[in-house]
């Protein structure tokens, strides 16, 4: 068994008196793809944002790459530079072209030389099938293309962990496929991923582990066939029957 890349223990996050995450325990090994499922407002996005240190946890410990990243002495920017995050509504920078979006962090965070950043950016765009769009503005692309650019932007600096927050929820059904295909490719290449999604078919295909988030904690987790096909807990069964209805 490998050393876990990400380890969460007793993570708690409340907004005022509203407790979103009560106590979350989770482990991700390198190369694994962990899928979070759960009702709207169950804290799936909050969990990802806590891992990315976009939210400060109220309690608990998150260990990333062997280091406690919830320690206030830790440099959050440095931690984030080793993770990639993709958002539901893409969040591309509209004032930069596609290549500019992809190379910004390489140039400003990772100190890569302009020429090399350009090459790596173009190679990454080629990988997501958008090499021809490198000079386009994000607004001129379809939703699926924009999301692929966002994935390229997050992936270009070789992050240790990819966090994907409902990356297909804002897409038309016919565009969902192109993004999910890309994620399946990444999984095959050994990219470690933590994602939340409503695409149960996709979860079943790529997940090594499916976690059902309920009541601020991971209510049930296990192999996708088991959690999605034969859930042990009533709540999980009720949730799955609701989304299939």
């Amino acid at each position, binding site marked *: 068994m490998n050393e876990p890349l990400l380890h969460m223990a007793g993570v708690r996050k409340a907004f005022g008196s509203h407790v979103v995450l009560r106590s979350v325990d989770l482990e991700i090994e390198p190369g694994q793809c962990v899928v979070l499922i759960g009702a709207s407002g169950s804290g799936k996005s909050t969990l990802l*944002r806590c891992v990315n240190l*976009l939210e400060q946890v109220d309690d608990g410990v998150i260990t990333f790459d062997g280091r406690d990243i919830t320690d206030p002495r830790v440099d959050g920017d440095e931690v984030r530079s080793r993770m990639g995050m993709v958002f539901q509504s893409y969040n591309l920078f509209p004032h930069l072209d596609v290549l500019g979006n992809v190379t910004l962090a390489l140039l400003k965070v990772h100190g890569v030389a302009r020429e090399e950043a350009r090459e790596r950016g173009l190679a990454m765009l080629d990988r997501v099938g958008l090499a021809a769009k490198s000079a386009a503005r994000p607004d001129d692309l379809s939703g699926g293309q924009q999301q692929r650019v966002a994935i390229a932007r997050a992936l270009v600096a070789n992050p240790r962990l990819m966090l994907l927050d409902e990356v297909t929820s804002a897409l038309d059904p016919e565009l969902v496929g192109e993004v999910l295909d890309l994620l399946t490719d990444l999984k095959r290449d050994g990219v470690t991923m933590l994602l939340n999604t409503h695409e149960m078919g996709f979860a079943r295909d790529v997940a090594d582990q499916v976690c059902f988030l309920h009541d601020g904690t991971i209510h049930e987790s296990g192999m996708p066939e088991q959690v999605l096909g034969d859930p042990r807990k009533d709540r999980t069964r009720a949730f799955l029957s609701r989304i299939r209805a």
Partner: protein
Amino acid sequence: MEQTTDWQPSDVQRERDVWRRRRTLRSAAIAALSTTLLVGTLAFAVVSSPGWERVQATYFHWPKAVDAFPAVVEGLWLNIRVMLVCAVLIVALSLTIAVMRTLRGPVAFPLRMIGTAYVDIFRGLPLLLVLFLLGFGGPALNLTGLPTSALFWGCAALVLSYSAYVAEVFRAGIESIHPSQRLAGRSLGLTYSQTLRHVVLPQAWRRVLPPLMNDLVSLQKDSGLIAVLGVVDAIRAAQIETARDFNYTPYVVAGFLFICLTIPMARLTDWYAKKQGFHGAGGML
């Protein structure tokens, strides 16, 4: 979602909280120290300069300040009234101009043209020039029904000049509202002007209020410029007091009073901008 109240922070979390508190205290201590050092050094540099005694006698003469205070305050009251009246008129006029400039369709062309010409002219003319032109030329027109007082024409000049700027702020606000809002309004059956009145303007108004407050502060100071027409405002009153013995303390008194007026306004602007909340999601960063 369950509301758990029986949660107790873990030892790790307690240790983190202690560390964060200590860091906050340390930051505050450093801030206090560096501020004291900087301000102290500056104050010492001024006070120890060779000419300080003469400057103090001419600009910071306490008895003279007390002496001039009532006259300056009386002048300031005029500034405040001018500002308040002008502000209301400026909002009305500039909003009209801004709406005129955003109207569409060929029928509205003359309105658009008038709006554009107005903004071009009054934004281009120096305020002092407008004051001289209207302040001395206005009364000379002998228009029936209009007063000939310098105060009236001075205010008119302020309103005309400022409205050109403020209209542009309003127009930027109106145009910053996403077209989808207009579409949504029209799809409900609202007319063009109803959409503008009930959907676009309320949102634009909220968005431009902080920059408008900035213009209000600016207007408050520029209201002093009507003194060039012979109206006795705070600055003119200070000038009169100064002329008695060439002690410039009344100017300092007037400046101090103006600052006392603008600071609350600036804090109000800050508070409002903060309330608008530009931190949205991911507020930590």
